């Protein structure tokens, strides 16, 4: 990077900040106002305390700088020798205390509101996995709909071989969909380590902890796409498990849910059909890139996980390969993917691993093989 670029790099943010401070645009410098009622309350609380701090700060720093300017030895100022004054000391203990009470009152009411998860119309179970989210729409009749939501930003953008898109690192393959004007309750838990589910604009941040079920809620008044991220360090790819919420009209939501249900049925049916090698490879590549690449590498060269290129498992017995894919390898980062994807996807990704990266086994694994393998 040349000197000129560095100057520009420095000047850019300074100008951006100055303009943002003056016009309130450009780089975001403040908390998202949020679209929900609780979000707006939190924002107001934040601004209230910020301004109280600014006012106190200006007062305190003015006294200090007055002293720095006028009470200098170099100006010949003679030091006074006063010290201790019970009156002043009581004042600067009691006044801050009263200000704190003034802050505690609105803080308490906002907190109680944020904690009130009663009367939710929809319950969504959110489970954190290393490094993706699973959403399960709980249904009274047991017809739950569930799916995984993975980062959809391609590795080529992350590793700078392709221009980064607008929603770089904040986009997923399958967003969580909720209807507007409806109280939605999130039940949060995790499968492995602690994660934290955060969407700034709907003001929900709650830890997802293995063995616990936490609750949070929202009621979104405006249709739109709201993006967030995991905010609890959860391992190597903690920075790569975003949240994407689509708030849609009630009708759209119902249609979406119905389509998801139909999908589930279709998938079960698809599991009994045979697919061609080309079909499996195309599907398998997509699944691999979304689910396996983070650990096994863009070219199957390995990373957190072992190399797939030339892997004795991928080149060896199909049953063993299915075993690893479906049940994982206990005690390692290699999870049991059997419960995390459809049988079609599993068949596709196993086929892909056996034929990509120079593993030209020519083997085809059909969805029915996966079904049979699971039966044992």
């Amino acid at each position: 990077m040349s000197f000129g670029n560095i100057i520009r790099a420095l000047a850019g943010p300074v100008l951006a900040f100055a303009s943002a401070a003056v016009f309130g645009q450009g780089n975001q410098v403040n908390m998202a106002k949020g679209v929900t009622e609780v979000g707006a309350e939190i924002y107001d609380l934040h601004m209230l305390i910020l301004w109280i701090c600014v006012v106190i700060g200006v007062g305190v720093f003015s006294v200090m700088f007055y002293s720095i300017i006028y009470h200098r030895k170099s100006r010949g100022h003679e030091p006074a020798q006063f010290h201790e004054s019970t009156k002043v000391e009581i004042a600067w203990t009691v006044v801050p205390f009263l200000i704190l009470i003034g802050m505690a009152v609105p803080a308490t009411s906002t907190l109680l509101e944020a904690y009130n998860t009663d009367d939710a119309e929809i319950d969504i179970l959110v489970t954190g996995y290393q490094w993706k989210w699973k959403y399960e729409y709980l249904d009274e009749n047991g017809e739950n709909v569930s799916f995984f939501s993975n980062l959809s930003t391609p590795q080529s953008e992350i590793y700078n071989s392709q221009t980064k898109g607008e929603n770089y690192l904040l986009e997923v393959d399958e967003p969580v969909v909720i209807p507007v004007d409806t109280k939605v309750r999130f039940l949060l838990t995790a499968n492995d380590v602690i994660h934290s589910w955060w969407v700034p604009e709907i003001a929900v941040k709650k830890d997802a902890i293995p063995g616990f079920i936490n609750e949070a809620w929202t009621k979104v008044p405006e249709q739109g796409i709201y993006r967030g991220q995991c905010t609890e360090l959860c391992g190597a790819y903690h920075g790569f498990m975003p949240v994407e919420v689509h708030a849609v009209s009630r009708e759209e939501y119902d249609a979406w849910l119905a389509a998801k249900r139909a999908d589930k049925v279709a998938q079960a049916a698809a599991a009994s059909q045979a697919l061609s090698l080309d079909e499996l490879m195309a599907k398998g590549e997509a699944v691999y890139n979304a689910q396996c690449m983070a650990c096994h590498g863009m070219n199957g060269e390995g990373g957190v996980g072992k190399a797939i290129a030339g892997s004795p498992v991928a080149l060896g017995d199909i049953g063993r390969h299915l075993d690893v894919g479906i049940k994982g390898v206990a005690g390692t980062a290699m999870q049991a993917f059997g419960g995390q994807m459809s049988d079609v996807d599993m068949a596709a990704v196993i086929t892909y691993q056996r034929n990509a990266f120079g593993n030209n086994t020519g083997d085809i694994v059909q969805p029915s093989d996966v079904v049979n393998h699971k039966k044992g």
Partner: protein
Amino acid sequence: MGDHHHGPAKGLSRWLFTTNHKDIGTMYLWFSFAMFILGGAFAMIIRAELFQPGMQLVEPGFFNQMTTLHGLVMVFGAIMPSFVGLANWMIPMMIGAPDMALPRMNNWSFWILPPGFLMLASTLFMEGGAPAFGWTFYAPLSTTYAAPSVTFFIFAIHILGVSSIMGSINIIATVMNMRAPGMTYMKMPLFVWTWLITAFLLVAVMPVLAGAVTMMLMDIHFGTSFFSAAGGGDPVLFQHIFWFFGHPEVYIIILPAFGVVSQIIPAFSRKPLFGYASMVYATAAIAFLSFIVWAHHMYTVGMPVAGELFFMYATMLIAVPTGVKVFNWISTMWRGALSFETPMLFCIGFLVLFTIGGFTGLMLSIAPADFQYHDTYFVVAHFHYVMVAGAVFSMTAAVYYWLPKWSGRMYNENMGKIHFWVSFIGFNITFFPQHFVGLAGMPRRIPDYALQFADFNMMSSIGAFIYGASQILFLYNVIATIVSGKRVTDDRVWDGAEGLEWTVATPAPYHTFEVPPAIDPTPAHG
């Protein structure tokens, strides 16, 4: 007593076997500076990776190792030992004692530190890499899901803990038993007071930390399930135990810094500290409150609302004694005769920036607002304002202030001032924008980020390189002073300096106060 007037031994054995508080203090100070450079190097790697969006230099897993080691090395290797070093040098000289109460233990508490950190640093070269679970090492990421090197991390923490506990016992024993006749508690310099209270905090919470890592060890190797939900354990329990140590820990870091600032500001204001007694009480109040606020780090774990409210109110209360401190320092400056030598500049820098950190602390204490701040860069900005501009600035001020007494030579004032201004500006370029990206939604501990955070991150990285480079100037200035600085002849060094340490010869002889000094019986501070 006559044959006790000997100088230091020659060669390496002087340092290996020394029981002299000044030698041990010196070793602590150099060791902590070395750790500061090491932790700083990790920080430079972090900031270089975050210079632009996208992965450029390191892999995400290694990035996490860097953030983890940076935090651990700075907290346990740089800041804490530096203040122990300062305590070793100054406490005996401030209370008129010939040495620390337990000199042999003193030697031990220092000498187990280097092996402890060697063990921690060696994890970088182990299979699976160094610890990558953050300096807060939340389970189960640090147990079931950790690299095998975690066991070495656990032992390293044990060693550092033992060293800290021995160091604090020594300080408590020294302050309680070794004061010169007439040096009553309420005559002790504030630095001694703040360290006495800090030492009690350390003795209280380091064993808790030791308990936490031992439970981890059991979970990892001996089949227990303290923190594993699958075995009936509780991952949140880990956080309660950690923060029961962790919050007092942040005051362990800042109280001695308060002490330093309370020595230096009166000296360069040529005016006594405004409210000595209220400063002592405020320190004690902060120490007490620090035990009942720990769960403000856990507002999002899903505590019952009553717990949430309790911890919020208790945390807000800390602002009161903290405010008392700031008001006191400013009243001390008010109508003094101020001059701005480097130690004073760093103290004023401390005052401004620590106050900003206190304000963000107050904002973070508001539980519902913290739902938005928690685990974002806003928190990173907060704690760097209190830990770097608080603890590190005050430590730097202390070195400039007492270095002439230690070495008998004066540092280069111009270079000191340049060091201050470059540090001050570099620090703010680094950390002020982090408030913005945090509020705008950037989580902490991520190796790559969304595009809207790019400008401020680049700014932050540039600031970090500036701040980092300015420390080289500091190192140079200190070495140049020791080797060839102008000799100081005046025992008092600074015309406004008060305290027994300024009554001994300059440079301070190897043994001081073998005969207790006479203490003025009139109340010193009031």
